[in-house]
């Protein structure tokens, strides 16, 4: 397999020095020297990308993904190290791929194609296909500054994929288009991969990475953390998210604990001592799909509340609600509460897909002002040997049968 992109020991330093005008420089002459902060957006990155690879670059905001993409694209030059490439490169960076707002869509297609190194005659050849793919014929002679962001991306993507590039760089742009167009783009990207072209993605849509990419690179603060299978990279980035969520949860718990001191009178209920269990009261935080699962907490009410309910919610790392219910919905009549009660939910099986999850709890009077809620108080993880998309883990049985050809019977 041929290497099409080689990134050798690339580092990129940015200096944050905002003073550009004469006045600012004179006024802050001394402080600019002192406050000249430098940071490394990329640190010793080594990458070899073979032709036909689709590579996903993932990481948190500010991890250097976009910088790396720009260095590969030649838009930024690395401070150290070098980048080598083969063949024509088309880049879709952030919004738009170098359009000029005052020019019409048509003019911008020609401008953009010439930036990618196409002659006018070549562009003429591709023009109809580009317009067709973008689906914005009627706005072709409108200045692009009047375009919606979706139209902008449509046109930019159409140009980028129709100029026959060997390498395509995409930075978080597809999320702008509507679903139909996104599907169209993904279809195009897949066919690109089949044709042996190389695609480098930057995205926060991890499902997309798992779907499309054969390889993923995880960056963190400019350092390459992982290079390999997308599933593993995604797991690692989710772990770091969970760590952040853990901190958040601790803070939430601390708030809940300290609440009684100055708590207003309309929330006389409290939730404390939340534990995620294996369904039998033993603390546990990592599960396999189908494991028994439980959540326990202590609800305290200073006043007597006769009609009360406890709610539970499980969200995944994308803040999608995976499960939510409460004792009222379960048609459970709870005995009146005064003082503390231990409440335990238990489930025979947890049918969720691989990932990190957060548990939120709430207690309230069904017809009253009494209320307590602790959001994302605890986290747990599901680790699965098999990747499934979506929310719910459904074990499947697959059977392949020969199709019986209907026998012709003469009546």
């Amino acid at each position, binding site marked *: 397999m041929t290497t099409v992109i080689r990134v050798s020991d690339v580092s990129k330093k940015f200096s944050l020095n905002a003073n550009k005008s004469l006045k600012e420089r004179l006024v802050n002459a001394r402080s600019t020297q002192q406050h000249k902060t430098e940071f490394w957006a990329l640190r010793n990155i080594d990458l070899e990308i073979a032709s036909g690879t689709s590579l996903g670059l993932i990481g948190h905001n500010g991890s250097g993904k976009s910088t790396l993409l720009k260095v590969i694209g030649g838009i930024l030059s690395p401070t150290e190290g070098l980048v080598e490439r*083969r063949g024509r490169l088309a880049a879709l960076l952030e919004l738009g791929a*170098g359009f000029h707002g005052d020019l019409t869509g048509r003019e911008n297609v020609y401008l953009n194609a*010439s930036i990618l*190194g196409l002659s*006018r005659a070549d562009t003429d050849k591709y023009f109809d296909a580009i317009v067709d793919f973008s689906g914005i014929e009627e706005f072709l002679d409108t200045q692009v500054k009047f375009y919606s962001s979706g139209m902008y991306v449509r046109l930019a993507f159409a140009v980028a994929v129709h100029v026959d590039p*060997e390498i395509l760089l995409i930075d978080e742009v597809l999320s702008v288009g509507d679903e139909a167009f996104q599907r169209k783009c993904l279809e195009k990207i897949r066919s690109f991969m089949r044709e042996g072209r190389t695609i480098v993605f930057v995205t926060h849509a991890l499902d997309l990475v798992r779907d499309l990419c054969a390889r993923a690179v995880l960056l963190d603060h400019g350092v390459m953390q992982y*290079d390999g299978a997308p599933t593993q990279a995604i797991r690692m980035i989710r772990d770091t998210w969970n760590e952040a969520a853990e901190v958040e949860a601790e803070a939430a718990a601390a708030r809940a604990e300290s609440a009684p001191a100055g708590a207003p009178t309309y929330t006389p209920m409290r939730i404390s001592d939340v534990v995620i269990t294996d369904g039998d009261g033993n603390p546990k935080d990592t599960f396999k799909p189908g494991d028994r699962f439980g959540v326990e907490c202590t609800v305290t009410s200073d006043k007597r509340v006769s009609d009360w309910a406890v709610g539970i919610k499980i969200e995944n790392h994308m803040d999608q609600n995976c499960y939510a219910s409460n004792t009222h919905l379960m048609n459970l009549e709870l005995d009146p509460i005064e003082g503390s009660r231990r409440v335990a939910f238990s489930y025979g099986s947890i049918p969720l897909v691989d990932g990190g999850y957060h548990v939120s709890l709430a207690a309230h009077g069904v017809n009253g002002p009494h209320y307590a809620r602790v959001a994302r108080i605890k986290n747990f993880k599901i680790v699965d040997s098999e990747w499934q998309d979506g929310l719910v883990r459904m074990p499947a049985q697959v059977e392949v049968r020969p199709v019986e050809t209907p026998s012709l019977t003469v009546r």
Partner: protein
Amino acid sequence: MATSSTHTRGSGGELPASFLEDAPQTRVEAVEALPMERVNPPRAFFRGALSDVGDILKFRELLNQLVRKELKVKYKDSVLGFFWTLVRPMTQLIIYYLAFTIFLGNQQPAYAIFIFSGLVVWGLFTDIVGGCTGSIVGNGGLLKKTYFPREIFPLAVVGAALVNFLLQMVVLFAAIGVTAVFTENSVVLSSDLALVPLALLVCLIWGLALGLFLAAATVYFRDLQHLIEIVLLALFWLVPIVYPVVLPINNFAKTGHDFLLQVYLANPMLNVVAAFQRAFYTMAPQYTFGGNLWGRLAVLALIGLGVLWLAQRYFARAQGDFAQEL
């Protein structure tokens, strides 16, 4: 971290292999045949200019597109459109004509032609220098998203300025024609017309050299955009456009400031303007520069090439950081 990445690397590599099974072999071979090229290679300070010129030539089509863009965008949405290109020099012409002939009582024959022949080429120079200064900062949108030799932006400004210049030349020729037909002033086709291409070349070389330097410097020092307007305004009066060059020459000679006179005459744009006046203002040759313009322009062109080369090297050094500075 390192161990986990090495043992999982294999599982990641399996997928593309399956993708490639049905990939057309020709494309893979075609890619293999392409040379592995270094992105933004560092270039030797002295010899790098040549390869940069080669890169720019590869993007001729883009240059063409950008020149069109410059011309289109400038007067887009305006009712009179391209006509505005002519309005500014015409207004200048009328103001100077009124001020000098009516208010100051200038007796120079066909004075309008005299002013205009200097004004067209001065206009070209200011368009280039002024336009180039903001060309990198003003095109940040394109610059941050795509890569191509950044010199294309200043060059596109030069191209657009040349188109405007040619239009104004048409007006100048028309004006000379009118003068020849309707007044008793004589219009002579002299060998001095041959000075025009050389003078134009000197104007372009110096304009582009200053333009390249200013375009790159403005990225780091935004005040230059405003500063340069004022400098150009002052420079206008150092060049004999509205007054005949013989006046300062006589005055310097009278006061004995011979060195100052040589400094004054060394200005490249003075020589360019003088050449244009000698070529087009044939009504009263005693008002135009009498020196050896061929020699002077040739020397200025050579020095200008050196300056242009230095400016390009500065630009090439600076351009790597444009995208992050904007």
